[in-house]
C-alpha cells in the first residue's frame, strides 16, 4: 500500500478528527461505484490511520519502503490540473 497519509492527503500529525474528515471528503468525491479501486485504497488508508493507536502501529511495524510516487507527493506535490499549450498539442500531433 502507498503511504496512507498521502492517500488521504493529511499531514503526518493529523488527529483522529482530521483523519475522519479527510476520509469522508475523499469518499464523497470517489464513491465505491465510481472507482472501486480508489475507494478500496481510501478505505485501507483510513483503517490504517483511524486512531492514534493505529497510526502508532503503522509507524512502529510497517516496513513498506517509500515508492517514487510517495517521494514525488511529499517533495513536489502536483498542483491543480493544468491546460497544455498549443505548442504541446503541436509537438504531440506533429512529432
Amino acid at each position, binding site marked *: 500500500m*502507498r*503511504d496512507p*497519509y498521502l492517500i488521504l492527503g493529511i*499531514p*503526518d*500529525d493529523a488527529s483522529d478528527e482530521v483523519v475522519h474528515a479527510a476520509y469522508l471528503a475523499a469518499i464523497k468525491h470517489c464513491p465505491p461505484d*465510481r472507482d472501486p*479501486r*480508489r475507494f478500496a485504497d481510501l478505505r485501507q488508508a483510513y483503517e490504517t490511520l483511524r486512531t*492514534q*493507536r493505529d497510526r*502508532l*502501529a503503522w*509507524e*512502529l*511495524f*510497517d*516496513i*513498506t*519502503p*517509500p*515508492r*517514487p*510516487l510517495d*517521494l*514525488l507527493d*511529499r*517533495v*513536489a*506535490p*502536483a*498542483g*491543480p*490540473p*493544468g*491546460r*497544455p*499549450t*498549443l*505548442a*504541446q*498539442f*503541436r*509537438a*504531440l*500531433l*506533429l*512529432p
Partner: protein
Amino acid sequence: MTKVAPSAAQAQASLAAGRYREAIEQFKTLSRAEPPEVWREGLAAAYRGRALELEAKGMGKEALTIWDNRRQACPGLAPDPRHLALLLRLGQSEAALTGYRSLLAGGESAALAEVRGHFAAYWLTEELPPGLATDPALAEDPLLRDGSTARAALAAWCAGDDEAAAVQLKAIPFRSPYRDFTTLLKALMSREKDPIASGKLLERVAADSPFAPLAAALRLSLLPDEELLPALGRANQPSRDFVMSLRGWPERRRQLWRETQRLGDPPDPGQMVVLLRRYRQCFSEHWWHHMLRALGFALYPHKAPAALSQELNDFDHALLGTLIDEREFPPRDVYTFWTEVKDLIARPGHSPAPGSPDALRIALIQRRLADRLGLLQSRMRPMIERELAESLELDPDYLPGYLLLLRHYRNQGNLTLARPLMERILQRWPEDAEVLNEALELAIAGDAFKKAAGLAKRILDRDPINRRARHNLFRAHLAHARKQMKRNRHDLAHKELDQADRWAEGAEHQVRVELLRGLSQHLLGKPDRAALQLACNRLGGGITGRLTLALEAESLGFSPHHFLQGIGLTPIPKPVREDLLAYCRILRTLLEQEDKVQGRRLARVAQPFQGALRQAARLPLDATDYETVCETLRLAGLAELRLEFAKAALRRWPKRPLFVLHRYEAQTTLPAPGSRFLHDLRPLEDALTQARAEGDQRTTHRLLELLKDQSPFDFDSEFNPFSDFEDFGEEDEDVIPNDELAAEIAKMDPDSLLQIFKLMLGPSFKDLEKIFGKDVPGGIRRMLASGELSDLPPDVIEMLSQLAGLSSPQPNVGPRTPSPPPVRRQPKPKNSAEPRPGTASPQPPPVPGGPKATGPSASPVAGQPSGKPGRGARSETPAPATQAGPAPRDGDEPGVSPSSPQLDLF
C-alpha cells in the same frame, strides 16, 4: 553468367511476402521487358510497402525518397495519402498541398478523406499558408471551412474557457475531418469531472487516426497515479510533457520524476536512501525515520549504504534489527529483542502514563508478541501473559486488548483469571454486544448455563438476529442437558433439549439434539440403536459421524469404544479423504473450544479410531491435506498417528521441511528407543536451511525451537543466521578451522573430553547415561563400530573416538564422502572496537547506568538522529539498557538469556 528474368508470379510473391526491395527490382526488370503500364500497379505497391517499412523504422527521409521514386517510376498515379502525411510531418507542406489539390481535382474519394484527416491534424496547430484561406478552389472544402472553428475551440480550451470551446465544437459538423478532434476535446473537457466518460469517448478514436497520438496521451493522463509513473517512462517526450501539464505537475516534480526513473524498477532501496537524503528537509521527523527503517528492511541482507547507517538513531537500529530478527529467531530471542525496543521507549521501571503515545507503543509491542508473533502459544506463555496484562494498564481503552487476554485465559481453561477480567471488561463496556457474547461463552466454559442463557437473552433482546448469541445459546442448552443427564435428571435434560431445539439452526444442530435424546434413552436402559445409527449417518457417517457420537457418549461417561460397539458402529471403516478432513475439522473445533480437557478426553475418544486413521495415512492426499492432518494430530497430542502421516508425506515429498518437523517432533514425544542425539539432527538442520531459503518463517521458527530442545549444544548461541549480513565482506576471524579443531581434540585425553561433554550436554548427558549406563564411552564406541554415527562430520567422529578411548576414527565411518562440517560463526564480542565495513568507527563503550537518550519527553520515534556514524543495531548501541540487556523482570523464565544473538545491522 546471364541473369534470368523473374516471372510475374515471383514478383507478386515477393510483394505478398513483404520483400519489397526484391519486389521493386523484379517489377522494374519486368517493366524493362514489357510495357511498363502492365507492371505499374505492382511496382507502385512495392514502393509503397518499402516506404511504409522505412517510415515505421523512423527513417522518414529515406521513406520520402522511396515515395519520390515511386512518383517518378509510376507517372499518372494519384498521390498516396501516406505520402502526403509524411510530407506534412517532415514540414514540406507546400508539396503536400500540391498533392492534396491533385487529389481534390479527382473528386471525393477515400484517399481524399484520409488526407483531409492528416491536414486537419496539421493545420489545427500550424499557421495556414498565405492565400490558402482565400483560395476559391478550397472555399467549400471542409478542411478550411471547419478548420477555423476547430482552432478557435482549441484556443478557448487552452485558455481555460470551456464554455466558448463547447460553443465552437457544436459548430463542427459530424462529417468533418475534425471529427476525432471534436471527440478528443470533449474528452479533455470531461476528464476531471468524469474520467470514466472521458475514457469512453477515447474509445471512439481509431488507432490509425491522425489524432491518435493525442488520444494516447489523453489515455495516459487518465491512469491512476501509481500506473502513470511507469507509463510515463515508456511514453515519448511530447506525450510526457502533455500529460504532466494536464496533471498539474510543477517543474520540480518533473525533475524529481526523472531522478526516480534512475532508481530502477522496482526502485533500488540503496539509491532511494541517497535520493531521499537529498530532500531530507521536505520530510517530517516521523516519516523520515520510518522510511529509513523500511528501506533498511528492504535492503536486508545486502549491505546498507553509509548514508543509512549515519541517519539511523538508536531506536531505529533496535527496531529495525528486531523487525528483521523476529522473522527467524526463536521466541525467547524475539521476546528479548522486543524488550530491548520497549526499554528504549521507556526506561525499565518508568512506566509511561497510561494512554500516552509511549504507553500505546509499548502496549502495541506487547500485543504483537502475543498475537502476531504467536508467542502466547510458545513456552514464553507466562511472560507474554504478564505482558498482555501490563498492556491493559498502559492502554486501558482498547477493548480488543482485553479480549485477546480473556480468550487466551478461556482457551487455557484458566477461568480463575478469566472471570475477574471479564468483570472488569463488563464494567467498562456493559452494553457492548461482543463483550456480552464473550461473557456468554465464558459462562458456558464455566458450566454456568443459567447465567449463559440470561446473557444470551440480553443480547437477543437488543439484536434478535445475533447469530453468535443464538449459537451460544444453543450450545448452552445442549451443555446444560448433558449436565442434567449426568445427574440422571432426564426430565430436566429433555426440557433443555427442547430449548436447544428452539435455537437450533440447520439440520446438523437438530441432529445433535436428536443424538442427545437418543443417548438419554440409552442411559435409561432403552437404547434405540437404529436412531443412533441414523444420527451417525446424518452427522456425516464414516469416522466423522462416529467421532461426534463418541464425543457425546464420552461426555456422558460411556466408554467410546464400547458405546460404538454396542450400537453396531464397529469396526470403524477406513475413511476417504473428505471424511478424514472432516474428522480433523471436528477435532480442531473441539480443541479450540475445550482446551482444558483435551489431553485425557481426546486420548479416550481417539482410541477406537487409531486403526482406521493409520490406514488413512496411505490415502492419496495432497500436501495441504497432510499438513492439515499432521497439524491437527499435533494439537490433539496424537504423536503416533502424526508420525505415520508425516512419514507418509515424506515418502511423497522427501525432505519437505514441514513434514521433517512433524516427523521429528512426533518422534520426540514418543518413548524414544535409542539415542535421538546428534545423528538425528542433520535432517533437521537441512530442513531449517531449506525452510529459510523458502521464506517459510513459521516452520523456521518451529525447527529452531526443536533444534534448541534436541541439540546438546546451545543451538543458536554460536550460530548467527544473519552473519552474512553482519559480516558483509569481512573475514571471519573467530571460527576455528576444522583441521585445527581436530588437532586440539586429538591432544585431549578421554576424561577431559568426558568432562567437556558433560558440561556441554548438561542435563541431557543423563539421557546418554540412561541409554548407555555409566559407560558412556563404551556406548559411543559400540555405535562407532556399528557405523550408526557415520553421518556425523569427521571432526565430531574424531572427538567421539577420543572420548570412547579409540586411538583413531573407525575406518568404516560411512559410505558418504566426508563433507566439511558446517562453519558456525562466533558472535562478535560486544563493544567490538573494530569498525564494520561501510560504517565509520564505533562509539566508545557506554557508561553503564548512564542517562538514556530517549524517554517520554523525547520520544524515540521522533528522536533526533544519533549523528554518530557506525552505531550497531545492538552490540554497539550506547543505550545502557540495551547494552546491559533488559533488566530482569519478576518471573523471568530461567534460561532466557538477555544476551541472545547481538547483531550489528549496518
